[in-house]
């Protein structure tokens, strides 16, 4: 039997630096690994000694693609500890800002990072030469997401307007109304995106691990919720550490999460959709049904369709929030520090993001813990890769490498986030 090694030493079209190695002995998969060589940046270490007001600005810098997720989980944790619940208009503005990030991040992933795999192109820029209308549609969608973030947050990357207790400055009703027309166009583009991606060819691949996502009664959880799993967990954010743990393996600058005592789980669009598709907007549910999605979707390759459905929902939800918006009386609630430990969660575009801060009485951070979605998904991605390789050993090295890379992109890994995360090597012997 021939032994072979297939290697991708720098994965493209993902956020951050990672690599993959697959070792094969004939039809037997000897070894699969995702290596994360993105250098460590030590956020949890240098948060110690900082003020409780600083995490929204500092942790945003973990990720340029999903800064609002970091800001939201951070303020959730600190406000909960300090006994502050922000008024409903502030919560809804935060949800609107977060919808902007979902639209920006999902449009980036669907059109620029993932669709080229299904259509046989190296990039969206190559794809644009043959299908300019599709790529322009994706870019327009992405821009609308960025416009929402810019208006509410000040700018699209590392927004400056989020603070513990609320915002520095809140928009007027009239300022928000300017987003209605672009969002209505974006919603049409999102519906077209669902139809477009639903027509791709999908290799069969069912994810059979536990699914974990936030849920919230009567809404598709984004900026708040309880942690639920397909196996029946139903947890407050403060109970996260009792049920999930991080392990450190040699090949990775990212910590990997598992259920305590062992057990792989997956968070992100498939988990959210499977646990709460009934909470999507009527239009998003209709688009999902037309695309052939059931109430659950465990098909990893169809994650691109689920992301597109979430695009419809995020546009709908943005329009709903803007329509009902009444500016809050003041932009922020006063927050006095309280000694103790605060826990915060939210649904980043690629999955559950957990923050924990321990403060002393004057608000100095004594300890911080941040668990990004890609750390939580890393074991599930490796399991999936192992299975995809085992079923496709007849493919030549180039075809197998391309399939492996596409498999990894199904999960929209954010390696910059996970480092505290990836090289594709396939070795055949």
């Amino acid at each position, binding site marked *: 039997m021939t032994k072979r090694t297939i290697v991708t030493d*720098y*994965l*493209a*079209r*993902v*956020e*951050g*630096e990672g690599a993959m190695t697959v070792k094969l002995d004939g039809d037997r998969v000897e070894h699969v690994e995702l290596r994360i*060589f993105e*250098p*460590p*940046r*030590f*956020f*949890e*270490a*240098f948060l110690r000694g*900082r*003020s409780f007001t600083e995490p929204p*600005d*500092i942790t945003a*810098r973990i*990720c*340029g*693609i999903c*800064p609002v997720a970091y800001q939201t989980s951070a303020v959730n944790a600190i406000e909960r500890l300090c006994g502050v619940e922000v008024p409903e208009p502030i919560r809804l503005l935060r949800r609107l800002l977060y919808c902007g990030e979902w639209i920006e991040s999902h449009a*980036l992933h669907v059109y*620029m990072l993932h669709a*080229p795999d299904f259509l046989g192109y*190296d*990039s969206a*820029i*190559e794809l*644009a030469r043959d299908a*300019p209308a599709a790529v*322009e549609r994706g*870019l*327009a969608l*992405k*821009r609308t997401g*960025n416009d929402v973030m810019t208006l509410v947050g*000040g*700018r*699209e*990357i*590392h927004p*400056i*307007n989020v603070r513990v207790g609320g915002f*520095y*400055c809140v928009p007027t009703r009239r300022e928000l109304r300017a987003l209605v027309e672009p969002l209505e166009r974006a919603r049409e583009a999102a519906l077209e995106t669902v139809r477009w991606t639903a027509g791709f060819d999908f290799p069969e691949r069912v994810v059979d691990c536990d699914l974990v996502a936030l849920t919230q009664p009567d809404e598709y959880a984004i900026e708040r919720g309880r942690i639920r799993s397909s196996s029946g967990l139903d947890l407050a954010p403060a109970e996260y550490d009792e049920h999930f743990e*991080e*392990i*450190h393996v*040699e090949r990775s*600058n990212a*910590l990997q999460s598992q259920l305590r005592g062992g057990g792989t789980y997956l968070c992100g669009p498939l988990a959210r959709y499977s646990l709460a598709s009934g909470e999507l907007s009527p239009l998003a549910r209709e688009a999902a049904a037309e695309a052939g999605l059931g109430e659950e979707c465990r098909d990893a390759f169809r994650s691109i369709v689920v992301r597109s459905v979430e695009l419809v929902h995020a546009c709908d939800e943005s329009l709903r929030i803007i329509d009902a918006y009444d500016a809050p009386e003041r*932009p922020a609630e006063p927050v006095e520090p309280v000694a103790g430990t605060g826990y915060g969660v939210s649904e980043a575009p690629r999955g559950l993001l957990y923050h924990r801060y321990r403060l002393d009485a004057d608000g100095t951070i004594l300890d911080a813990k941040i668990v990004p979605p890609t750390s939580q998904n890393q074991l599930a991605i490796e399991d999936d890769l192992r299975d995809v390789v085992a079923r496709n050993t007849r493919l030549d090295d180039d075809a197998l490498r391309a399939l492996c*890379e596409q498999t990894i992109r199904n999960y929209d890994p954010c390696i*910059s986030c996970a480092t*505290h995360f990836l090289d594709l090597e396939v070795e055949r012997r």
Partner: protein
Amino acid sequence: MSGKPSLAVWKFASCDGCQLTLLDLEDELLPLANAIDIADFREATSAVAAGPYDLSLVEGSITTPHDAERIQEIRSASKALVTIGACATSGGIQALRNFADVDEFTRIVYASPQYISTLATSTPIAAHVPVDFELRGCPIDKRQLLEVVTAFLHGRRPGIPATSVCTECKRRGVVCVMVAHGTPCLGPVTQAGCNALCPSYDRGCFGCFGPMETPNTGALVPLLRRLGRSDDDVQRLFRTFNAGAEPFQKAATHD
């Protein structure tokens, strides 16, 4: 080859936000891609062309022995090299390790510190290789990025002002948050480029674009103290995304 100028985008320790800024040029991206050859830009394309490159954009700071070698190779393959963002230009937020014990940092974050290969410091690209232009910001501003790329591809100096955020407030007619509201603000010592974003949102500048040319931090620090900020508060204000920039280092430790 097409005869069009070639562009490469490289990443070191960073959040990906500055290279994302290139993809955030939604209206200009496709025309730009027609005017140049994108030779190497891993976040956007799997297609990779060998150097040399007419213009390399470098994001991120140097924090590992391997990256210290990689930047040398990139420099020698690039006609012009431009750093984009606070990490590449001053070491970024991860330069906070420069004022601490990195072994302890590793032990705080990782269960098995022996698996981690890292340098004791996070340093800007210019500490390792000659840099042709440094574009500031955490993140960079997309209009400024477009100006820099256009300027380099046409062989002219980019028109990027090195004045302070104060000049942008004055130009926009934004009321001074420090004078009018007593809000601590780094605007007087921070380079322009954000169009006075924070003051226009009723917030003090927190220094994303790093120190301006010849900043008078010696005059600002006593003012911050008079607004009730402690030594620790002042130090934290200067020690964020551009903590490694020399004028901010000095301001963080001296009155």
